[in-house]
């Protein structure tokens, strides 16, 4: 379990984190989302005992990071954003050093290394030098290093950067299964990642918590909207005079982001609808009914997810008092 109470951290007079509090329970994966400079990495550095808080408390597995840094460090597995590897060691030598540093005796180290390289798919490069590894393998070796001593706490700073889509899925599965028995905190830029593996999300902006909750709730907290991409095929006669304005017939429509006629009878549009209200009909249903009643066939109907950037634009512009 991890507990952060009113954590503040300044570097040389500049405060990077302004009073952040949260709790991460055992058996959960907490995602820290935020643009660069939001304070994600700083929070992780405090939790791993790399930096001490300027004020506030960070408690990891019941231990205060300032009072008992060595005990905290031995309970934490950490993958820093920079993926720290010794270039002139082989994968085997590197993991052996980590096991040595984690005070694992020889047989325990051998078992831990075997489990770790298996979990991260490193069997093929075991004897290779780190400097010869591709970005994806380096990332996986960094992760193997973090989980080597089977720590109760895992802190992963952007664990899937540099991986190809297949590897991303594998590593996400791995993190998810680790999260069943451990406390995992990870940071990311990617919203889908949070939805795929996190049980809780904290969105950070300029060193403060901007929003927090389960990934499915976070959208609501953002007072967001639904973006829908639509392709319609007009029935006989209905294409006449159909234009951007005609879409305003859709009940509840907020705005039309784009509209174009692909051919005489096929139209593509991107529209924005109010956020889903569980009491009302589903957005797709509303649109489908409208299309049917106006003599259109729905060729494509796709809910476009807000990207993280868009969420941040919203969060930060709301913060400006709009």
């Amino acid at each position, binding site marked *: 379990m991890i507990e952060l109470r009113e954590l503040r951290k300044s570097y040389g007079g500049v405060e990077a984190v302004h009073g952040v509090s949260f709790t991460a329970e055992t058996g959960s994966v907490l995602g820290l989302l935020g643009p660069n400079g939001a304070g994600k990495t700083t929070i992780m550095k405090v939790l791993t005992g*790399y930096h001490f808080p300027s004020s506030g408390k960070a408690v990891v597995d019941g231990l205060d990071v300032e009072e008992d840094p060595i005990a905290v460090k031995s309970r934490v597995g*950490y993958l820093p954003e920079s993926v720290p590897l010794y270039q002139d060691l082989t994968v085997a030598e590197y993991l052996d050093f980590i096991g040595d540093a984690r005070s694992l005796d020889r047989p325990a180290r051998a078992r831990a290394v075997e489990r770790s390289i298996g979990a991260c798919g490193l069997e093929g490069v075991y004897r290779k030098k780190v400097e010869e590894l591709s970005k994806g393998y380096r990332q996986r070796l960094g992760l193997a290093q973090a989980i080597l001593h089977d720590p109760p706490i895992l802190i992963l700073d952007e664990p899937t950067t540099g991986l190809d889509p297949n590897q991303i899925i594998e590593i996400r599965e791995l993190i998810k299964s680790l999260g069943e028995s451990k406390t995992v905190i990870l940071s990311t830029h990617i919203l889908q990642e949070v939805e795929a593996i996190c049980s809780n999300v904290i969105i950070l902006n300029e060193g403060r918590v901007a929003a927090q909750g389960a990934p499915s709730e976070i959208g609501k907290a953002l007072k967001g909207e639904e973006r829908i991409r639509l392709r319609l095929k007009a029935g006989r006669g209905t294409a006449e005079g159909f234009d951007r304005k005609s879409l305003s017939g859709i009940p509840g429509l907020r705005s039309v982001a784009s509209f174009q006629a692909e051919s005489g009878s096929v139209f593509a549009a991107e529209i924005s609808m109010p956020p889903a209200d569980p009491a009302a009909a589903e957005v797709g249903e509303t649109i489908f009914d409208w299309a049917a009643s106006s003599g259109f066939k729905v060729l494509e109907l796709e809910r476009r997810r807000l990207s993280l950037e868009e969420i941040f634009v919203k969060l930060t512009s709301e913060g400006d008092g709009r």
Partner: protein
Amino acid sequence: MKNVLAIARREIRSSFNSPVAYAVILGYLLFTGIYLYFIRGFYAVGQADLREYFIIMPLVLAFLVPALTMRSWAEERRLGTYELLLTLPFTEGQLVLGKFLSSFAIAGAAIVLTIPVPLAASALGSFDAGILVTQYLGVLLEAAAAVAVGEWISSLAKNQVSAFVASVLALLCLVLVDRVAGFLGAKGLAAALLNWLSLAFHYDSFSRGVVDTRDLAYYLSASVLFLYLSAWGLTRRKWS
């Protein structure tokens, strides 16, 4: 101690996986050898005296120790492994000591590997084994202090090159400062102070085969002081 050895082992592995350790050891043997046989003309002088050989060692070490220690912290910063080391369950003291031990072990290996030179020379005349042991003890102590200084400078430096240049300059100053005293004709307290600071001055008695406890204390306290400074810097960083 286990942790210290884990760090030292990693460092030594890295050093021998790259050309650094070999280059330093080879460089040391070459420079001291060339100096003895060609510059001082060991055979030409016709005297069975190896003092010249040992006198030059601090100066050679002033160039080669920085080549070992420059990587120590500066390289960790560049690779980002600095963050790894400081989030592994090591105390600052263990980190500093582990790195010191590894550099000292390689410097020590270079020094010990010169033993064949006096052994070969011993065929030419009668050498006192006791003096030889003292001479080696002196070089090793001097190397320990130099490594501690180099490690400390590396812990402050932004990159390897600046760590190397700064360490060479610092060690040259420390080795040569007693000559400045002689050069300036400094007397009394000033001369005593300059001499006392000098890495070479304290080495002098060892090279003559005399173990002076004051010199022993100087080397040991210099090593401890700079190791302590490195550890203190690492600890202070956490709050910055």
